[in-house]
């Protein structure tokens, strides 16, 4: 009975995410186009929420790693890996949408500017986090080393965010996360907020699923480790001498 309840609860989150996506699309197309860039600027409603959600995910990886090091409970390690995987997906989505946006506006898909390079460093850095996990078999050592990696990697987020203020860049400075007024008109802000809610719910639904998968993987690993199997497996048979009695 417990399983059914958990499945139902998870289903609610999935449905909420899908409804939020539909609502965000409706709101986005009900708003007028941006004055200078026209319809292309609607990509703002995916590009910016995606990177904010990615920051949030990597923050969860930091929290999960720290909580693991303090409590040594593997469930926090499962949270860390779930959030990191979803964060990498959303960072990739930000870069992909950014490229689609840059081609008609800037004139190129990609250029080697600080903001773009540092976002790529963040993307490949967290891919490195996932690769490190795959390279370690022992779940305890894996959780400990990944936690350290996840804590150190968080330093890239402020560097990515402030890069457009520290160095002269083709990428414009922040529109929303700035000390003075947001540089966006009401209807466009509404479309952005709808996109932010949808992205957050999608990320939450994915993290919950990935967390449960990580818990089951750990369960399977411990069952396999404790199972009574021959050391060399069934593929090897003991050698016999010809003509032996």
């Amino acid at each position: 009975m417990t399983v059914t309840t958990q499945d139902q609860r998870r289903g609610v989150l999935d449905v909420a995410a899908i409804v939020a996506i539909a609502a965000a699309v409706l709101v986005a197309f009900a708003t007028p186009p941006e004055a200078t860039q026209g319809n292309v600027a609607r990509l703002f409603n995916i590009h910016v929420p995606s990177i904010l959600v990615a920051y949030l995910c990597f923050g969860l990886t930091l929290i999960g790693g720290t909580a693991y090091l303090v409590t040594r409970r593997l469930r926090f390690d499962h949270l860390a890996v779930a959030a990191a995987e979803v964060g990498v997906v959303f960072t990739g989505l930000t870069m992909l949408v950014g490229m689609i946006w840059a081609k008609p506006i800037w004139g190129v898909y990609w250029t080697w500017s600080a903001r773009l390079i540092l976002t790529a460093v963040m993307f490949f850095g967290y891919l490195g986090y996932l690769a490190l996990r795959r390279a370690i078999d022992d779940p305890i050592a894996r959780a400990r080393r990944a936690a350290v990696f996840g804590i150190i990697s968080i330093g890239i987020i402020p560097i990515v965010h402030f890069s457009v203020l520290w160095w002269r860049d083709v990428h414009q400075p922040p529109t929303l996360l700035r000390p003075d007024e947001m540089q966006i008109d009401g209807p466009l802000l509404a479309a952005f907020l709808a996109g932010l809610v949808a992205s957050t719910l999608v990320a939450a639904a994915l993290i919950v699923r990935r967390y449960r998968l990580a818990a089951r993987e750990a369960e399977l690993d411990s069952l396999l480790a404790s199972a009574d199997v021959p050391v060399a497996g069934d593929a090897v048979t003991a050698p016999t001498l010809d003509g032996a009695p």
Partner: protein
Amino acid sequence: MRRYWRILIPLAIIALVIVGLLISLRSNLVFFNTPTELAEQPAGDERQRLGGQVVAGTVSQADGVVTFEVTDGRTQVAVHHSGSPQQLFQEGIGVVVEGSWDGAVFTSDFMLVKHDEQYRTEDGQVYEPGEPIEPAP
């Protein structure tokens, strides 16, 4: 003791890499130079990036060459850009052009259009590609 070294050495390497990256970014990764900075440098043949705002009333187009001036508010530089400009190219917008000095003129063959961080709905002034847009008052 061995345990401490196993943690300290990777941490030191990571710190060195980050500090080195930041220092090199600080000195080399300015994406473009302003007209004032470029005008102060001795004219050379090397390729450079020049960034600034297109001065209103200076844009003209002939034989595949766009002629205009860019400014950072202090210095104006004349630019001859060969090739067709981006859709969004217009008076008052930010551009980054890549090229070199030809006397007092900056000749460029690569242009990026920079848009600002403002997202506005402007009633009656929605941008349509191909239509000239009046600069905002």
